[in-house]
């Protein structure tokens, strides 16, 4: 028997599936970076990763001290 709850669940499920499919498609489309990964580019990207880790740690410390 078709219930409103069942229809709602199916609808939500298909929306979520649609989004995850879309994200997977985007990830696949851009899987290979097109910029030439020279040593300079690699160093810069590594710096950016470390910089982000630093900021995350800083934010974590802020929340830790706020508690």
């Amino acid at each position, binding site marked *: 028997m078709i219930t409103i709850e069942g229809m709602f669940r199916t609808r939500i499920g298909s929306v979520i599936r649609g989004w995850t499919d879309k994200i997977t498609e*985007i*990830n696949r489309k851009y899987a290979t*970076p*097109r910029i030439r990964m020279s040593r300079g*580019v690699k160093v*810069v990207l590594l710096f*950016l990763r470390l*910089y*982000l880790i630093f900021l995350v740690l*800083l934010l974590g410390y802020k929340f830790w001290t706020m508690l």
Partner: protein
Amino acid sequence: MDFGSTFFYKYRRFIKVVKIYLLLAGPGLIVMLADNDAGGITTYTVTGAKFGYGLIWFLLLIFPVAYIVQEMTVRLGAVTKRGHAEAIFDAFGPFWGWFSFLDLALLNWLTLITEFIGMTAALSIFHIHPLITVIIVSVIMMLMVLQGRYWTWEKIAILFAALNLIYIPAAFLVHPSVSEVLSVGLVPHFPGGFNGTLFFFLMANVGTTITPWMIFFQQSAVVDKGMKEKDIPWGQVDTLIGSAFTVIVAIFVIVVAGTVLYGSEIESAAQAASILMTTNPYLGTFIAIGLFDAGFLGAICISLASSWAFGEVFGWAHSLNLKIREAPWFYACYFFALVTAGIVVLIPNAPLVLITLFVQVIAVTLLPAALVFLILLLNNEEVMGKYRNTTAQNVAGAVIVIAIIVLSTLYGISTLFPEWIA
């Protein structure tokens, strides 16, 4: 040829150049004047009230910085025909793509809230209820995009951008001492000595001048406008004029605040307007109108920057030249950001101060990446060809990026831990 004929010929030629410029002007002028958004106007007002004319020289330094950064987006957009979000995905892969995109979406939404805070505060001075302000602003912003032409949107936006110049007549109302403005303002010095508070204000002024949304907005606007490689010189002139205007407006805000509010403990532009309404109603009105316009200008650019980015990443149709039925998701993003940001401002006891501080911290996480990607993309010879950065542009860009990363990081840290700079 006699003098009259030569003069007439040159006059006609000048008028023709101006007409072509006005046709092609847009992204650079709009983004630069929108740079003086509600947060920017507040920063300049508080700076003027705290240090008088003492930091005008510092704003002059920001002029080339703003131009060099934004000019790169013109070349990148005109050559690749891609927005910045899509360009990052394409060049650096999904990790950096998602990071930049999600960070931008969050940052823009939070910044949009701060624009609404500025607009509602400005119109509250005229006893207009925040709910009415949010409704009016949302309706105008929706009508601006619904007419279905980028060109029309751009020209309306330029009209609102022109209103940003209201601080120039406002400065004439306060009769500042020109000699004092020049002697105090143009000589590089640190009023009261170099200390933590002054450094915080220097960082705040840089932080409000170079923002991530500007990079994303201008590149997407260049693409939506349909600018080609041959239009790059016009785009550069547009950006140069816009950079000049943004600094001129900032200086006039400081002159106004430095003349009538110097020494006062001012925390926002709305507070300044409110105080001035009691002593000089014309000036208070000018400041309030300027603050509202600044918030409005920022809001129209920021909400569009997000919608363009969503469209680029998810592959949806994303152009102001398309009708709603042709680009439903693009307009849905625009309306969603607008309405939700407006609603947040109307929530009683919403943590608006916390949101304003959070914007500064989130901006610090995105700005360095956006700037670094910009320079790397401009050095991609395969894509940029003869429009890639020259050595001189790379040196200037690198110096600016390093300086901005250091200053914005310290600004973010001092926002998180104000006790460290006390």
